[in-house]
């Protein structure tokens, strides 16, 4: 009798094992068939020389430099993000309200038609995010906009249900008409711990398959940088951690070729104020150890872009946030400060966002925490400033 029971149990286990093995092997075959290709950076991302200038007046070698505040009346404005639209237009997003983290803070949007900024409209509020994602949402912040190759405008915003910014989740909105209307927001599932603490700040990088990398960072307990990969339709695919060291966050990605890119990192460390960078040589799958650049960074967001062949531009706070500067580099490692956009003690000029299109460079940033400021210049102006610096030396 006992023997029969054992035989029966053995048969059951063997059957279950067979089912499990069959299931898993079938699954592996199916999964292998649908496995995505290794990523490579799009030529668009590392060679803006391909793009046409959006300001033809400035293409004649004349120096261009303009600056203006985006008109807006709320007490606090911060964390702006910029991207280019067709016909030379720009679109900007930022959060504004009574104070950072308040429940009345919304995400605001404005379009630049090449001459002036249009009316400011609210796009996303905590209530709307709550209704879209079917999750309690207390506050929203840090919008990041990106226009993909197929013309879809992606808007990523962080939202918090409980706690501070380190408890944030990331939400994804898409527009198929350049920001006139927006689809229903979707909460991205990015963390095994209560799906919290994935924040975005810097803009995405285009991949050759039409998808993109969105640089993000983790804040809960430890701060480290990550990248999210999306396909050309805006579907989230995977995430990659750039390093596990604490205190390095908000990566700004600078593609140099189809496989090589630098990531520059904000430093949030008590006894270290170097600006760090790391390198990938396989399209962002693996990254090197972080190394310090010759610039310093005291817990401030930075952005980097290519302005010419072997010429890179960084917007950063060299010390405190009361000074915002431009630095250029020929190799992406050694940087030279060429111009101070802002330098007023006691004020804050921070969180820059950059767009380079042909000959024109557009930068927007937080101005005194009250407004978003837009600065436009051309490469002739930048070359002039770099030349002045060389002459001084």
């Amino acid at each position: 009798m006992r023997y029969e029971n054992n035989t029966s149990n053995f048969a059951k286990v063997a059957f279950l094992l067979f089912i499990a093995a069959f299931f898993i092997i079938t699954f592996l075959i199916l999964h292998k068939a649908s496995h995505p290709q290794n990523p490579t950076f799009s030529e668009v991302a590392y060679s803006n020389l391909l793009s046409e200038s959006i300001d033809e007046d400035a293409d004649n070698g004349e120096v261009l430099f303009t600056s203006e505040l985006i008109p807006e009346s709320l007490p606090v404005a911060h964390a702006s993000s910029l991207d280019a639209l067709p016909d030379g237009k720009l679109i900007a997003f930022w959060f504004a309200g009574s104070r950072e983290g308040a429940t009345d803070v919304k995400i605001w949007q404005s379009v630049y038609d090449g001459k002036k900024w249009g009316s400011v409209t609210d796009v996303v509020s905590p209530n709307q995010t709550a209704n879209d994602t079917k999750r309690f949402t207390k506050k929203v912040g840090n919008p990041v906009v990106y226009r993909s190759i197929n013309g879809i405008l992606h808007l990523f915003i962080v939202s918090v249900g409980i706690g501070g910014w380190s408890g944030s989740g990331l939400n994804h909105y898409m527009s198929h008409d350049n920001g006139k209307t927006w689809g229903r927001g979707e909460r991205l599932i990015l963390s095994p711990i209560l799906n919290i603490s994935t924040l975005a700040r810097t803009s995405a990088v285009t991949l050759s398959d039409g998808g993109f990398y969105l640089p993000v960072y983790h804040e809960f307990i430890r701060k480290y940088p990550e990248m999210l990969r999306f396909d050309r339709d805006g579907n989230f695919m995977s995430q990659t951690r750039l390093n596990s060291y604490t205190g390095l966050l908000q990566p700004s990605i600078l593609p140099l070729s189809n496989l090589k890119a630098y990531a520059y990192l904000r430093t949030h460390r008590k006894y270290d104020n170097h600006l760090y960078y790391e390198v990938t040589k396989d399209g962002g799958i693996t990254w090197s150890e972080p190394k310090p650049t010759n610039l310093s960074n005291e817990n401030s967001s930075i952005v980097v872009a290519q302005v010419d062949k072997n010429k890179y531009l960084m917007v950063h706070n060299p010390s405190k946030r009361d000074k915002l500067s431009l630095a250029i580099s020929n190799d992406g490692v050694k940087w030279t400060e060429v111009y101070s956009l802002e330098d007023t003690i006691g004020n804050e000029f921070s969180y820059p966002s950059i767009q380079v299109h042909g000959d024109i460079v557009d930068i927007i940033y937080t101005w005194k925490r009250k407004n978003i400021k837009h600065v436009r210049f051309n490469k002739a102006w930048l070359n002039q400033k770099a030349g002045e610096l060389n002459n001084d030396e």
Partner: protein
Amino acid sequence: MMNNNLITTVTSGLLISILITIFVSIMFGLRANNSDLVVKQAKMGFLRFIITIVAFLIVLFVPVYKSLTLTELLRGIIGDLSITTLLILLLVLRNNLFNHQISVGEFEPLVMRYNKVPNRAFAFIIVVLGCFLYSSYLGYIRFDIYDIGYFPSPLFMLVLGIIELFLWFSARRYALLWLIAVLCFYFKCESSHNLWDYLFDPVLWLICLIRLFRF
């Protein structure tokens, strides 16, 4: 493709409604002790089942704050629960109706007393895996274990090995749960694209931790 939000909403709703049932059972003494008559046990079990279903419908459909239901409020705080948690909660529900020895009306933690929901071997494996996964995710382990869940070919081998462990420890039910979870991952039944999120979650990990050390 089914609605990605549906399953996670149902899971959160079940969790809250079972917690409510426990609370109501404690408050009104709806307990069916082992010494009770079989008939009484059956009545109590059925009553708790009804309470759970009513609570489930309320937390799923009745707005309580800014047009959000209790389930949606919970999802804003604890995120999405795994398929395994959903299946275990369904087991709890089923046990409440048909197996009166297993009671959610006890002052024991949600899942369950001596009688194996979750199984101790299962709880042990979840706790160990969770320790590695969560440490890695927080950056204390340099290798990102969570990342494997996006391209889970190696993880399948691990899952297969663990399923065999479940069978070894006579926890066939949990082997089946994980097979269903893997199947749900393939059909993207939840919003997540990561296999780990289908296998377990922090709530289940906590339940397993309590199960492991409390009983």
